């Protein structure tokens, strides 16, 4: 430990202002503060400060993502061997290793590109490096289809960090969840590559899929009117889909950690699910309408809890909607914000089959409206204060 500290302390003078390597200042500071909590003490205001800082907060979110990541790796292998028809002969470690080797590069690309840009901006602005990307950098791979080309991951990450975050002033100032900006960017910029059924399952050049393979996700199937997935498979996650979103169980593990530590907002999680359920029930009620095509009617009448276990609904509710920066910030606002995300996600999915992944768009739209919701909540608060002041006076 002392050895590492000495390295940082010895190199510190060389990155100070005016020194030769000042352009590495943010880089040095970023790693130094990661290894060692700085020795800065309080100069004004309270003399003691809570031990919690942004590093720990973000660290816990990353930890909460680990179950989804690990399961995602396993599932990538599972879907691959299933598709080539060799599932019976492949063991657990074959599946996991295959997935690990497929997923790891995506994670690395996301972190290297994203952190690289973050470091550069921190250096330019003379700020400390913000920990926000530690989470975004993990979220981005988890919401990508496994066959997304790495260069696309890199472009999307760069777009998300620069236009989703840095142009607004960095972490804490952004309007949209940066990871979803990355996903939306790919969705709209490369629709040909990012939709269809071929991106969800990893296949090598020489692999051939077994007969009858479609590679379609339950979400895409449902949009076409085929509700034929097993709810148990969808809950445990043995279905095709984006890397980290398939297993509702793994996501729930993360949710438990976020709620216990108080870092993710349980209000948003619960209200999002409630919104999804309510919209599902409304669609069920209208499923008998004669105006609907048979496919649409089938999707309309899908049991509501199915919506919670397929696609990105659970992942979005737990990890995306709860991003404290882009979500509503007032207590009441959080309930409204989450509820509307749930409503819109299910509505988009079912009523507009051109966008099967309604969750992404629902969250981005509600990110946009979150300040408006807060504005009205704060206005209500002010009105109440004024009224009370009048009574007192």
């Amino acid at each position: 430990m002392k050895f590492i500290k000495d390295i940082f302390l010895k190199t510190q003078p060389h990155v100070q202002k005016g020194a030769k390597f000042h352009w590495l200042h943010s880089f040095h500071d970023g790693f130094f503060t990661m290894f060692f909590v700085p020795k800065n003490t309080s100069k004004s205001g309270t003399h003691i400060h809570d031990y919690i800082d942004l590093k720990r907060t973000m660290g816990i979110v990353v930890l909460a993502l680990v179950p989804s990541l690990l399961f995602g790796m396993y599932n990538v292998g599972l879907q691959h061997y299933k598709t080539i028809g060799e599932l019976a002969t492949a063991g657990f470690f074959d599946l996991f290793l295959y997935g690990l080797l497929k997923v790891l590069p995506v994670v690395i690309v996301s972190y290297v590109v994203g952190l690289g840009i973050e470091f550069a901006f921190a250096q330019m602005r003379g700020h400390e490096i913000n920990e926000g990307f530690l989470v975004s950098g993990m979220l981005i791979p988890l919401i990508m289809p496994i066959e997304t080309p790495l260069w696309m991951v890199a472009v999307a990450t760069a777009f998300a960090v620069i236009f989703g975050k840095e142009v607004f002033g960095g972490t804490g100032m952004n309007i949209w969840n940066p990871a979803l900006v990355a996903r939306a960017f790919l969705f709209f910029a490369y629709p040909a590559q990012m939709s269809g059924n071929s991106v969800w399952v990893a296949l090598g050049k020489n692999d051939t899929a077994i007969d009858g393979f479609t590679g379609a996700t339950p979400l895409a199937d449902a949009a076409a009117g085929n509700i034929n997935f097993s709810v148990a498979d969808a809950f445990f996650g043995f279905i095709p889909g984006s890397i980290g979103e398939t297993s509702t169980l793994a996501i729930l593990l993360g949710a438990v950690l976020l709620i216990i530590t108080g870092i993710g907002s349980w209000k948003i999680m619960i209200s999002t699910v409630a919104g999804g359920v309510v919209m599902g029930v409304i669609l069920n009620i209208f499923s008998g309408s004669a105006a609907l095509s048979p496919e649409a009617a089938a999707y309309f009448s899908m049991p509501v809890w199915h919506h919670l276990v397929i696609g990105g609904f659970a992942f979005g509710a737990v990890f995306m909607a709860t991003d404290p920066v882009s979500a509503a910030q007032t207590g009441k606002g959080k309930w409204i914000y989450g509820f509307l995300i749930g409503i819109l996600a299910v509505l988009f999915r079912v009523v507009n089959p051109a966008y099967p992944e309604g969750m992404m768009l629902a969250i981005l739209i509600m990110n946009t409206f979150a300040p408006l919701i807060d504005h009205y909540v704060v206005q209500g608060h002010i009105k109440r204060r004024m009224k009370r002041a009048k009574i007192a006076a």
Partner: protein
Amino acid sequence: MSKVIKLRKGLNIKLKGSAEPVLETLSLPATVALKPTDFPGLTPKLSVKPGDVVKAGDALFYNKYHPEVVFTAPWGGKVASVNRGERRRILEVVVETDANAGSAEFKKGKPESLSAEEIKEQLLKSGLWPFIKRRPYGILASPDEKPRAIFISTFDTAPLAPDYNFIMEGQLGSFQTGIDALAKLADGKVVLGIGEKSVFGNIKNAEISQFSGPHPAGNVGVQIHHIAPIGKGDVVWTVQPQDVLFIGKLFETGKVDFSKVFALTGSEVEKPKYFQTILGAPVSLITDGRLKKAGYKQRIISGNVLTGTRVKPENYLGFYDSQVTVIPEGDDYEFFGWAKPGVEKFSASKAFFSKLFPKKEYVLNANLHGGERAFVLSDQYEKVVPMDLLPVFLLKAVLSNDIDKMEQLGIYEVIEEDLALCEYVCTSKIKVQDILRTGINTMIKELG
């Protein structure tokens, strides 16, 4: 008892080193001093020069814009020096004490038999007026204003705070006299906030409200908010319990008596307990020889760990403080500190294993435990502010210098101590108290 108010939000920070209920009387210090810097917004003008001889209760300096508001010597003797800082700002007016100096003479008499004007004049002349603070803004009360009411919190919930039940032992009579005097100034409207077990329950001539709950339930600002909130154009005054004693003794004896009890607390103190000395005593009088010998730096605070002022042994105790706290400075690097399980790390969040041991007392140091960031987490502040208030939005209004919004969001109701816990819990290490004072200063400048 009229009301019992239960507060849920807030946070008790359990520090090691609370004072045992033992009182030691200290000998007269060689010097005492008043510090104009203890009074926010004051422009002091000197009434004395070094070499002058004063009695206790003789003016040392006065408020330039309200010359009738004078600040008097806590003990008589020779004015030793006027210590100045940058741009010749007066920092300390030091008096070399003389055991036989005596006190200036004031009127003696029951407050009931005096008029409000007489009481006001007596408080102004004797230098007790500055113990009355005014809300909004937490600044010196102006003699021209008439308050809606005077609020006194008789208990302190801040970390390691002194117990006024103990300090008041045998002095409740003087306290009652002080309340009687204050009641005259506010047409009988004096409001006492008392804690759960309180010796102040039988005080007369005042409305009594009982409060329970974690810190900041003992803050007078929080109590005002729940009894009768401050709106625009409203003025209330606040006084602290030991300062009520000064007022009571003045009317009982016709002399000033600035004897004051301080609690010496904190994990770095050998035997934390109470000390009787006088207002303006040097810090070293209380701390010398009573701190643990340590191989690391220690931080001495006049006041509590949330709102106190960092002092050195050669400085003097704060005018409004009743407590000295000593904690480790904590200026070391910590290897992967943010990633450790944190059994030893008290936190308001639930992100450390210390949460599993709710009864434990902790040694906390002055380290920031992280770097300063933009606002990221959203509902941390609300959880520690038991008021109908949106602290983050109020602070953002201050940062954007939006006077209307500051007013609407309740800047009249809070001073630094009321939002100090926000600064403690903040993940982003935002300087809440500094920001709030900037906002208050803006309000004073723009609206007067």
